[in-house]
């Protein structure tokens, strides 16, 4: 590791090479000069001074861009949180789900006399679920929102491409990405309150096995988000004693899946594991209904979202959906004081959130709400909205410790902090326990579908069970 120590300057900096990824050219200049050894004897004192100054200036510039400055940035006006997710495209349902949590939290913060004297707002940034669109969207978001202090997202669709960009801009992000690549994230501003996709695959396998299914068919879309579930689903189901009789990767949004369905029927599974966009799964399952007969289907959290349920319910009939469908999603109890506060505020936000009741029991909306509250309380603890200062307080907001006062809303947290107490925020998404990689995973619940549109609880798969069968 390269350590460059500069002393004798106003505000001494210690810059580690690992922090200099975006300033590498400058560091290389420095290294090159070092490798040349002692300056040649014929170099004048003035020239050597000039070179030294240039080197020092370069390193100081690099340092300024990568480490915390001495004083926090001053903000005027409304503070901005972003919901950075797909609002259009195959995963268009992700964005509104996230925005529901953000808007609800922001409204409650504003009603609680604001955040450090500022009002807050939520903006929607549409990634279209495609890295090619998400990267410019991220750059535009960072360039045009000077008061951006935190965000929810990105999703699995665009996380690999955009997390480094957002991290480099020092914006804390609470990703809903399920990619296992972030299980051991080294990005200082990356947080995740929901389990990775591969854990969802395990929960699906465990539930299927508990239900007595032994011949599974994995039918997943060819998008990143869906495919993230597959490896651990396959290995966990095998470990449990089941057999994957078919593993299909579907090209999304085709007009026909009859050949794929024919192969499924020939493989004789007793359960289908799936995640694909609503139109794909609707076409696939309706063509299964036409060519053979429906069998139990176990989906992931995106299949519990209203667009998926509407599309598939419309295609195969809501009665069939109720009869055959179950889905694994992160467990959020949807009861208790934190949830009451969340749900009341959510339902009151009907002018900003269409059909808010659809997000009442949605674990992602709940954790997105929690994320905004956690960031806001961290700002209060740090006494500044400057992310480079408040980021280090984020784990402290949720940390369990003896004597900590458990708070269930932003207002309770602010009041407790004002009273000089140590707090532990526990929101509607449940307790947050960050590991060293700032991931907090928990249990899964299996939900079904009722004709009235609700998702009744079917079963719970504990975090221990998930870990046991996870590769």
């Amino acid at each position, binding site marked *: 590791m390269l350590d460059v120590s500069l002393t004798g300057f106003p505000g001494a900096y210690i810059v580690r090479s690992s922090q200099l990824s975006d300033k590498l050219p400058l560091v290389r200049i420095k290294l090159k000069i070092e490798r040349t050894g002692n300056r040649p004897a014929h170099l004048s004192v003035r020239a050597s001074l000039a070179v030294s100054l240039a080197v020092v200036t370069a390193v100081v510039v690099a340092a300024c861009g990568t480490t915390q400055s001495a004083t926090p940035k001053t903000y005027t006006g409304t503070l901005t949180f972003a919901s950075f997710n797909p609002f259009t495209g195959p995963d268009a349902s992700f964005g509104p789900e996230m925005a529901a949590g953000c808007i609800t939290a922001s409204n409650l913060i504003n009603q609680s006399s604001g955040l450090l004297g500022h009002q807050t707002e939520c903006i929607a940034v549409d990634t279209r679920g495609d890295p090619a669109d998400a990267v410019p969207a991220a750059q535009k978001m960072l360039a045009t929102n000077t008061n951006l202090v935190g965000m929810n997202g990105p999703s699995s669709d665009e996380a690999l491409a955009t997390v480094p960009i957002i991290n480099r801009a020092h914006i804390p992000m609470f990703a809903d990405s399920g990619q296992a690549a972030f299980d051991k994230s080294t990005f200082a501003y990356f947080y995740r309150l929901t389990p990775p996709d591969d854990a969802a695959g395990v929960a699906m396998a465990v539930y299927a096995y508990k239900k007595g299914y032994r011949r599974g068919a994995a039918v997943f879309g060819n998008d990143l988000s869906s495919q993230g579930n597959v490896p651990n689903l396959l290995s966990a189901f095998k470990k449990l004693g089941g057999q994957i009789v078919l593993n*299909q990767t*579907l*090209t999304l949004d085709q007009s026909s899946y009859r*050949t794929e369905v*024919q192969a499924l029927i*020939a493989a004789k599974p007793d359960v289908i594991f799936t995640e694909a966009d609503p139109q794909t799964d*609707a076409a696939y399952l*309706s063509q299964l209904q036409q060519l053979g007969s429906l069998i139990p289907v176990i989906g992931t959290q995106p299949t519990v979202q209203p667009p998926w349920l509407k599309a598939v319910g*419309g295609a195969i009939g809501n009665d069939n959906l109720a009869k055959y469908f179950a889905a694994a999603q992160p467990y959020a109890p949807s009861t208790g004081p934190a949830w009451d506060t969340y749900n009341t505020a959510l339902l009151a936000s009907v002018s900003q959130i269409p059909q808010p009741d659809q997000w009442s029991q949605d674990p992602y909306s709940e954790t997105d709400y929690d994320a905004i509250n956690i960031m806001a309380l961290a700002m209060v603890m740090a006494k500044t909205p400057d992310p480079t200062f408040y980021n280090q307080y984020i784990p402290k907001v949720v940390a369990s410790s003896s004597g900590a006062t458990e708070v269930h809303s932003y207002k309770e947290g602010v009041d407790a902090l004002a009273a000089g107490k140590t707090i532990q925020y526990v929101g509607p998404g449940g307790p947050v326990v960050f590991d060293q990689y700032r991931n907090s995973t928990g249990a899964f619940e299996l939900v079904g579908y009722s004709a009235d549109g609700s998702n009744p609880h079917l079963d719970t798969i504990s975090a221990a069970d998930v870990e046991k069968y996870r590769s």
Partner: protein
Amino acid sequence: MQQLIPAIGFGLITASILAIAAVGFTLQFSVTNILNLAYGDIMTACAFAAYLANHAGVNIWICLVIAALFGAVFSMVLNRYVYFQFVRRGTRLFAMIIVTIAVSLIIQNVLLAIFRPTFFSYHADAGSSYHFGSMVFTGSQLAIMVIAVIAMLCVHVLFTQTKLGKAMRATATNPSLARSCGIATDRVIDVAWLLSGALCGIAGVVLVLNTATFSETTGAGFLVPIIAAAVLGGIGQPYGAMLGAITIGLAGEISAALISPAYKGVAAFAILIVVLLVRPQGILSEVADAKEVAA
């Protein structure tokens, strides 16, 4: 291998939908020389028109006629009041493509604003299943294939047996000469848009009958195979589009059966590239040579 025969049957359904759409697309292009990339979105708009009628209690097959009428009028109006304004100013082929892309985005976003980002289904029964050897079709799929065959026959009769069809072919081959011969090319162009729009409307509804659900982007997602079928057959060639549709439809399903569903799109487009390498003008190409398509 035992899945090959059923896959051919499934390919015929896809080919039927593609054929209706691709013939409409190429028919309009052959007469007007406008590569209308908003075609898929017009399909979606027609599907929504049928949806509104269907959910007002109208039978889906009558909705099909409504969608065809809507598509015909919509396309003609679109040409008269948007595309033709650019053509009159001498806008070149590439710039016209950009205009059609803009129209595509406008239609998509207007539909999104009106209907919100969700999915829609028709009230339509797929009907009983019918077995032909190891091929299986539902009643609605058989209907789709019959509609495709009738549409193709109508196009054939139009082109070969009617004065209008001959006028369209003449306009497609050489508009200036056709005008000199007394053909009212402006009217012929209007009729081409009407017919293309009607086929577009029918294609939109049968596509949704096949996919079971749709959203504001469904038609646009189907545009690439439509263009592929049209190009494969020889752009501007209705018979070529039929041939291209059968090739693309069958190739996709057969590759899904024999290789992997993951390569469904790959196989069809690989065939397209190979054919175009061997025969750049497409399989059938009388008109294509005469126009400035290659340029």
